[in-house]
């Protein structure tokens, strides 16, 4: 295990300690175990609170998106495992500024169970909660079962849209509707080139032969749609872009934003090789590529690989994506 680590069992808690030590001006713990974290200035009075969370190992997802114009609070589970409902509840309490709380997180079974429990508990305490699941991975279920899809790097845009709407004073229902609108116009797809190792397990989550890739992989190493020999970068970019493009029904004249996301070990250089090709495809297809985000927005520990997220832009999404946002992790990136 080529990891900087002390004890696998304290991995997540030490990461959080480090983050709180470095970013004490921006973040604070909202529970004794520090597994619930909120903006230092939370709750924001009369603003809808945005709470997210999920398993660890995906930085800057989830904790990195707590900030101004983004999420208000987060609950952090063990590596690749959901936080508990108590942890979600703790984040919810301290994120509630009186205008209700929106849960925005990726569609994973364990998270849904625990967030739903937390929502019930919060409602019992008089906090109004709504939930919008992010389900952007187009290969994880066909279009007629969109809601079954898992949530991947599109989370970044969901946080931006939710946080921007909340900062502008939208109501809980309006913020939820904005994220749902984004969801309907967003698709992602990933490709993995090497596995990750969970610190507590010490073994790779899957194996790929030298020179193999897994097309359609999830951010926990979930199987994709196809495993095969590693294609040239341009073919891979073409396959990801065409698949998402079909799913969204993009056509000439449409405006989009694109995120080329690194899964962890892949150098930034290679992400730009993919971005280059996407830009070429858009030019060739008459699609207006208004903005390209390149970098690590949702990772899977040290997995080599990348994902592509495409958002179809309309005035509403464009406006929300253009709002200022800042967090210790992704300030200038979003």
């Amino acid at each position, binding site marked *: 295990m080529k990891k900087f680590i002390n004890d696998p069992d304290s991995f997540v808690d030490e990461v959080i300690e480090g983050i709180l030590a470095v970013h004490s001006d921006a973040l604070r713990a909202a529970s004794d175990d520090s597994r619930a974290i909120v903006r230092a200035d939370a709750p924001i009075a009369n603003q809808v609170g945005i709470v997210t969370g999920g*398993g660890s190992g995906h930085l800057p997802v989830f904790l990195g998106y707590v900030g101004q114009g983004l999420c208000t609070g987060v609950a952090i589970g*063990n590596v690749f495992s959901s936080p508990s409902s108590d942890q979600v509840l703790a984040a919810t309490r301290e994120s509630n500024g009186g205008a209700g709380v929106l849960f925005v997180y990726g569609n994973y079974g364990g998270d849904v169970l625990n967030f739903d429990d937390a929502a019930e508990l919060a409602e019992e305490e008089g906090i109004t909660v709504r939930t919008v699941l992010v389900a952007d991975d187009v290969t994880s279920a066909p279009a007629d079962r969109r809601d079954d899809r898992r949530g991947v790097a599109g989370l970044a845009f969901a946080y931006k849209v939710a946080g921007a709407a909340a900062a502008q004073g939208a109501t809980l229902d309006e913020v939820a509707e904005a994220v749902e609108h984004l969801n309907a116009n967003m698709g992602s797809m990933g490709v993995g080139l090497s596995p990750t190792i969970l610190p507590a397990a010490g073994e790779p989550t899957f194996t790929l032969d030298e020179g193999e890739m897994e097309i359609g992989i999830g951010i926990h190493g*979930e199987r994709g749609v196809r495993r095969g020999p590693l294609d040239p970068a341009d073919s891979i970019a073409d396959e990801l872009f065409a698949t998402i493009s079909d799913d969204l029904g993009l056509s000439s004249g449409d405006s989009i934003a694109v995120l080329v996301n690194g899964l962890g070990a892949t150098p930034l250089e290679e992400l730009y090789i993919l971005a280059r090709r996407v830009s070429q495809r858009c030019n060739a297809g008459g699609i207006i590529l208004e903005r390209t985000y390149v970098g690590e927005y949702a990772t899977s520990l040290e997995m080599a690989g990348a994902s592509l997220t495409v958002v179809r832009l309309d005035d509403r999404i464009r406006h929300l994506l253009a709002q200022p946002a800042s967090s210790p992790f992704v300030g200038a990136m979003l």
Partner: protein
Amino acid sequence: MNGAQLGALLDTACERLASTGDELRELDAEVGDGDLGITVTKGAAAVRTRLATLDADVLPNDVVLAAADAFGTANPSTFASLVSSGVKAGAKATELTDMSTAEVVAFGRAVAETIARRGKSAVGDKTILDALVPSLDAAEFSADGGALEAATAAAAAGIEETAAVAAKKGRAAWAGDRGIGVPDAGATAYLRFLEALR
């Protein structure tokens, strides 16, 4: 069986479960994310720690509730959450007193019902239910003293069937047909638990 005896039995079973980590990780990783090994080993360890805090005259039902709570918070993944809330609901519904076969089967039915309801799942979806439900049927109609053996055999048979199909629920469902051939990880965890009880 009284509460202390049940606690001792569970303690031994959880000790034995420590060695299942690798198998469950690998099964879960085939189609999912590979954390089930951690869920079960951490969960089992947490159960043992919690059992050690119980009084000698504890009631069986409270032993089960305490174990469920510990298992559910150690690593609250899908499996841990479903099993923990299922067991808690089962204990509340049955109020376990002597752990007779009839009582345990009734308890198990309530567990399965809760898992199915919360997981929006049914037998055939390739989940823990595919081992749990047949094991309860087998135990109910087993010969005296043979309930555990019958349950174990039925669970194993149910798991074999899960290998033949694609998952319809949970993370494994995303793998679709590519998951065919791999037995369900959560169902296997349940089987290993039954085996550890012997």
